[in-house]
């Protein structure tokens, strides 16, 4: 298991080089990228977090996924600080024997990470700054697990 909360960029290729060695048939990865807003004037996506709790929350979510789907390996990397459009915010990866487990575990990680890990996003645009509101959909997504 690898959990990382960091300001600096990460390289998915380097992170995945030795990921899921062993009895693995399926590796699923998710990479989140900063998208421009509807208006098209996003200058910076500022990501705040809660040092200490963040790492503990991510490890807890990853351990639960590992247990439920008997994962061979699991990884969560999440950045904080100021990010530009097109930059990678975060990634998760899961290694399992079969594709169904690898996909489900990756979606589980993403759903919990969205609503249960202490990160907050603020959009800084030409016209001002605004905290991103949590979506009811994201909270509802937890119900399926």
């Amino acid at each position: 298991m690898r959990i990382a909360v960091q300001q600096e960029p990460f390289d998915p290729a380097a992170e995945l080089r030795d990921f899921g060695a062993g009895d693995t048939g399926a590796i699923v990865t998710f990479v989140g990228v900063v998208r421009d807003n509807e208006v098209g004037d996003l200058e910076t996506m500022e990501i705040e977090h809660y040092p200490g709790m963040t790492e503990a929350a991510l490890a807890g979510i990853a351990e639960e996924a590992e247990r439920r789907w008997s994962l061979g390996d699991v990884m969560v990397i999440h950045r904080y600080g100021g990010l530009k459009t097109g930059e990678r915010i975060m990634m998760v990866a899961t290694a399992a024997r079969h594709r169904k487990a690898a996909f489900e575990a990756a979606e589980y990680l993403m759903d919990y990470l969205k609503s249960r890990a202490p990160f907050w996003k603020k959009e800084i645009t030409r016209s001002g700054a605004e905290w991103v509101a949590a979506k009811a959909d994201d909270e509802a997504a937890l119900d399926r697990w």
Partner: protein
Amino acid sequence: MDVLYFAWVRERIGLPRETVETSAVTVNDLVDELRAREERYAAAFADLGALRVAIDQELADFDARLAGAREVAFFPPMTGG
């Protein structure tokens, strides 16, 4: 007890953390004490439905007891990923 604020709660109150002397039994009691202090606290805690709380870095409810807690944090719903 250390009290931490994140995101717009931090901005509204104007500081990221402070040490609070309190005899509050539950989180709700602590919120009442903070609200009574100053308008900026009252504004930050106006709608508890828009807030989340963690006790010693674990998510908790507002009626959770504070006995033994070293760190309480208030923040809006999380938006990671």
